[in-house]
């Protein structure tokens, strides 16, 4: 087992050479591998000098959690333990991060909701931990199928939310996520989302840098809140009598605190812009009048539809949102210039992304926004379903 005392100025406890995020993400040579999302997450964590990881099983993230456990056994992760349940896990993650540890955990579906109180507490205490959310259904009758409805519950927790489309993005994003979350002026938790099974359990080609390099360790003394120690117990700031009362000063404090958390997420924009190469990625025809606004694997399906529509002589484009919090409003508006029809394909029943898009575009576009196609409960979304939606809109009554 690794010890923090094994760390030197140039190498971490497992002997990996310490490098900057730019070197790890952009400059180091890469080799092709063929891996599942869970395996790729293990590879990412291996290169992040992670101090602590807390696990609890729930499909589809169990395998990722167990693979991070293997990393601990191999000496790459400082400490690793299993929580009592998801609420316990997220509380323990908070404890690790407040004490100054670079901390990661994973969860899925109902586990996310069971732990819900903690996410707002995470952001309120400005810990820079990372949650890999491998999305799955949350409803009764219980399902393990991929469905990203739980993301809608996470939107107002005050955490940053990034969304990866495939295994390659999961690898790169989960490394960049630590770097951005730990910037002193950001320093709020980050939730890196992938669609469960579609990404966690499918094997794809992925380009990885060598595993003998890793990120520099987290520097807790650059935290905007002092890390806990014997003089600074956790939650000390919560106990001020003025803050706990219901009066004007309490109101002022809480309002300022909440605006500050959201301001911290806003400050992440330039860093995310750099490490993600833009907050939105656009593919397809630049002069298209039809656009798909997507995130996650819906982007992949929309790209399939875009190619098929091109064969029919219909130009379209796919605007993939890589961050949901902060929401890339300006980038989206720019990418939608000249577009007349906007479609928002989603893997959930409520259409949370459609709501986000409509809110961002209210009175800022004359394009017609269609919230669909939408599938739920883990059903796949074939390109034909997207094409059908488009044809019914632009060619009413005649179908695809």
């Amino acid at each position, binding site marked *: 087992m690794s010890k923090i005392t094994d760390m030197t100025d140039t190498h971490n406890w497992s002997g990996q050479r310490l490098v900057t995020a730019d070197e790890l993400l952009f400059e180091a040579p890469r080799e092709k591998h063929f891996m599942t999302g869970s395996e790729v997450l293990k590879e990412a964590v291996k290169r992040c000098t992670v101090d602590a990881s807390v696990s609890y099983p729930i499909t589809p993230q169990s395998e990722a959690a167990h693979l991070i456990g293997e990393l601990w056994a191999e000496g790459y992760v400082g400490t690793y333990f299993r929580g009592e349940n998801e609420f316990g896990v997220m509380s323990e993650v908070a404890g690790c991060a407040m004490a100054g540890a670079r901390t990661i955990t994973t969860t899925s579906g109902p586990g996310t909701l069971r732990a819900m109180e903690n996410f707002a507490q995470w952001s309120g205490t400005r810990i820079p931990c990372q949650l890999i959310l491998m999305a799955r259904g949350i409803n009764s009758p219980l399902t393990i199928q991929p469905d990203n409805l739980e993301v809608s519950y996470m939107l107002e927790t005050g955490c940053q939310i990034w969304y990866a489309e495939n295994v390659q993005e999961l690898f790169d994003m989960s490394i960049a996520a630590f770097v951005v979350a730990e910037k002193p002026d950001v320093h709020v938790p980050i939730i890196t989302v992938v669609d469960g099974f579609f990404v966690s359990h499918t094997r794809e080609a992925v380009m990885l840098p060598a595993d003998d390099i890793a990120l520099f360790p987290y520097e807790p003394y650059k935290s905007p809140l002092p890390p806990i120690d014997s003089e600074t117990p956790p939650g000390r700031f919560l106990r001020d009598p003025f803050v706990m009362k219901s009066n004007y000063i309490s109101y*002022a404090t809480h309002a300022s605190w909440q605006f500050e958390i959201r301001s911290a997420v806003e400050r992440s924009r330039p860093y995310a812009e750099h490490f993600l190469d833009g907050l939105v990625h656009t593919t397809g025809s630049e002069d298209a009048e039809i656009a798909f606004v997507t995130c996650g694997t819906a982007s992949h399906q929309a790209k399939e539809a875009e190619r098929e529509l091109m064969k029919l002589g219909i130009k379209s484009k796919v605007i993939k949102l890589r961050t949901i919090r902060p929401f890339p409003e300006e980038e989206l508006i720019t990418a939608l210039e000249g577009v007349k029809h906007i479609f928002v394909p989603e893997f959930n029943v409520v259409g949370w992304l459609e709501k986000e898009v409509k809110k961002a575009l209210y009175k800022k576009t004359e394009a017609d926004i269609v919230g669909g196609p939408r599938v739920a409960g883990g059903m796949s979304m074939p390109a034909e379903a997207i094409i059908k939606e488009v044809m019914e809109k632009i060619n009413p009554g005649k179908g695809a």
Partner: protein
Amino acid sequence: MANQGPAYYSPYPAATYEGVITPPEGKALLLEEIVDEEIAMREIAKVMLTKENATIFPGPQVLYGFNEEAKKKATLIKEMSEILNANMIPMYDYRPKYPKIDAEVEINPNHPNLTIWHNNIKAAIFIGVHCHYANVALKMVRSETDCYTVAICGLSGHEDAMATLRDQHSSELEKFNKIAREVKKELGL
């Protein structure tokens, strides 16, 4: 109510909501304008030397001698207060205060406006305060008072202050003190 800065009309202002974020490395922020560090230092010195009851609020990172840099900074801040003719009201730590804070002797991050009202402070420098507490306090001060706030930060700066200097270590504080002396002389003070 607040009468300065880009978030003038918001009861609980947050500069990021107006599109203002921390300055890039090597630069400073005056309200929403990104300027050279020296320009900001001159403006800060001028404001501190000309406003009523100018006060420096040193935080735990410069009040406690946990390393040599902190000790050096503390000495320079004391010198700064003499150059600027400024009072000093410390933010010792972030502990709850029972039964109430004493606004005469310290400023609390959760209700900084009390200290500013009580002492009729019209210009203030926050220095050595952990960033989150500085930002919470700065938002409230902007909202509740007409105090001109300055953040002198060792990290990325604070867009909620009217003037922000970032990456300020002892060498930068020495530079600030030198500039402040020049400005004081120019103003004939």
